[in-house]
């Protein structure tokens, strides 16, 4: 193992991010306790712009699932949900989140001094990422006696056609009508246009943030990305997200100019396919750091890098971006996407995470790693684990696998 002597230079913007997140969750908590304000829960690439434009405060439960994993408490909470009949092999974001509600245990309490996730007035999903969100949301719908509504875009698409977009757009129109009727609201179309424009700009800035990793050495890693992506998920459609990414970009460009790498003695650049292993993000980050290897690009962080809004039909933009995301595409489209990123980020090898409870966001089960290895002539590794449930992860095996992978890259470099 090669140990880097140069000390890591932390990204300064992270301090600002902590404050931003604090204010975000405090405001959500205030909204949940204010009868004049409404809270809607939404899936992470769901139609949140409609909710914001209608005046809802938006909360993203998948972020809470990730937080429970990162805080290493999911495995204690999941049994509560399993006891209710939710399979231990189904989405561990879902089972840990339901478990946290049943146990009244949320890291948000301790972190921000609030009562936990904000109580919902409305639950909105899109099955563009998985069907599990419907079951997850329905649990809370029953528990809180609030409506659950959603859209179900066509899945596993090759090309996303105008017909697909029109079909999903019609679902969004129907959804708006349902919400308007339920809550006695009327959507302000100009407001929606403004929110979508902000969302698109946040996403464009996020893509620029990810693109800084093209530099050698890269100023940012996947493990930084999973932290700094919070505003584009939680606050897209707001000026706050834009301000944050503009500041972060200035810092990252400075790092590139000054040659400050996220991994100072960068030797190899690898790609991470699949979900993060949230309970082990720190350990994995340190492992790659010790191996002088930067995880320069990932499918996960790119999930919120949408195409630009052209200023015309905001619902068509929402329909398109939510339908054409990686997870919703066929194998050939996914492989082509990965190939583009391998070239773009000068990738030496790819690691696929087989997330045991997330088959939809796992791409190692139908031979793709083998095909990638043949087509792009790069070493490929599959590691077993899970996004949140640590019981599926073996530290010794995974770390040995990763070390051997770097030995393989050394071998190939000779």
């Amino acid at each position, binding site marked *: 193992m090669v140990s880097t002597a140069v000390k890591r230079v932390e990204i300064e913007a992270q301090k600002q991010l902590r404050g931003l997140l604090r204010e975000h969750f405090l405001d959500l908590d205030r909204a949940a306790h204010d009868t004049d304000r409404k809270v809607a829960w939404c899936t992470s690439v769901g139609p949140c712009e409609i909710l914001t434009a209608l005046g809802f405060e938006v909360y993203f439960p998948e972020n809470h699932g990730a937080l429970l994993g990162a805080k290493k408490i999911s495995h204690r909470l999941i049994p509560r949900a399993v006891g209710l009949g939710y399979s231990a092999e189904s989405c561990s974001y879902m089972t840990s989140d339901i478990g946290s509600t049943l146990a009244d245990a949320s890291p948000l309490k301790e972190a921000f001094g609030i009562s936990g996730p904000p109580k919902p007035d409305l639950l909105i999903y899109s099955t563009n990422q998985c069907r599990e969100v419907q079951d997850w949301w329905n649990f809370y719908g029953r528990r809180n006696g609030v409506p659950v509504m959603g859209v179900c875009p066509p899945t596993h698409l090759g090309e996303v056609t105008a017909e697909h977009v029109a079909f999903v757009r019609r679902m969004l129109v129907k959804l708006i009508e349902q919400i308007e009727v339920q809550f006695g609201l009327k959507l302000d179309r100009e407001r929606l246009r403004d929110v979508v424009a902000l969302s698109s700009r946040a996403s464009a800035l996020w893509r620029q943030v990810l693109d800084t990793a093209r530099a050698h050495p890269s100023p940012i890693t996947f493990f930084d990305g999973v932290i700094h992506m919070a505003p584009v998920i939680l606050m897209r459609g707001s000026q706050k997200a834009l301000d944050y990414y503009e500041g972060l970009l200035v810092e990252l460009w400075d790092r590139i100019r000054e040659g400050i790498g996220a991994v100072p003695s960068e030797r190899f650049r690898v790609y991470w396919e699949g979900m993060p292993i949230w309970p082990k993000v720190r350990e994995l980050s340190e492992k790659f750091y010790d191996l002088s290897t930067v995880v320069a690009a990932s499918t996960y962080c790119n999930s919120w890098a949408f195409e630009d809004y052209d200023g015309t039909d905001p619902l068509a933009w929402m329909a398109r971006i939510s339908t054409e995301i990686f997870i919703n595409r066929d194998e050939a489209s996914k492989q082509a996407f990965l190939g583009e990123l391998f070239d773009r980020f000068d990738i030496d090898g790819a690691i696929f995470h087989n997330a045991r409870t997330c088959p939809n966001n796992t791409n190692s089960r139908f031979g793709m790693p083998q095909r990638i290895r043949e087509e792009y002539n790069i070493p490929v590794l599959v590691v077993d684990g899970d996004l949140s449930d640590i019981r599926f992860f073996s530290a010794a095996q995974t770390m*040995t696998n990763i070390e*051997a992978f770097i030995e393989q890259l050394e071998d190939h470099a000779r």
Partner: protein
Amino acid sequence: MSEPIYVGIDVGSSATKCVLLDGGGELVGHHVVPSGFDYAESADSALAHSLLQASASRADIASCVSTGYGRASISIADRQVTEISCHARGAREWYPQVRNIIDIGGQDTKIIRLTDEGKLADYRMNAKCAAGTGTFLESIALKLGVTLDQLDELAMKSREDTVMNSYCTVFTGTEVIERIKEGQAREDISMGLFRSIATRVSEMMSSRDGPVSATGGVAAHCRALIRALEEVLEAEVFLPPMPQHAGAYGAALIALESKQAGRSSADHVARG
């Protein structure tokens, strides 16, 4: 001045193996001890016995590479290299044409594939599950009240093509009970267990092209495993002279080559 000694120590989940080479790459000492609770102590013991065999002392150690799950516990190691690279290096020294190496250890099973040039092409390790590992066999043997060696002896007497339907250690245990109730011969049940491992191994192989070698403690002790692998893979499986020591041997070769190359970072699989 005494002959310099190159040390490879493989601290596995069940056993700690040590191999010593002289400057010409000749194997001059080796030993294996149970890993136990204290990896450093086990490694020290294996090293002491190996040095005794080689009539050498610690002062003669020119370089040491550690490998295996406990590789970080070895303070005298100049470098740690994964057991994947070390098993590949060791097996390739014995069989230069080998393309697939099947290493079945106590805790895990590794399938290592080499390129025509002897570089690491691909490797796979079992998931967080004992299926296909030495622990699988040990657990069932314990349940049947026999040792691993006795299980092997029984299996080698089997004449029936018995196959177990489970990989899972727990479910296979249940299946064995069912087979006993059905009156199946203990020899055939025993051989079925080895076939279960061989079938699991075959699923982990990305390609069956080229010569195959088996390494690790299970291959060292169980002829029935080699028989089962040859049946399932329909190919000859080469068993090296010291299968259990393949990782330690590879580590010692890497130590020797690193020193000879005058580099701090060891070469491994590609060098022969």
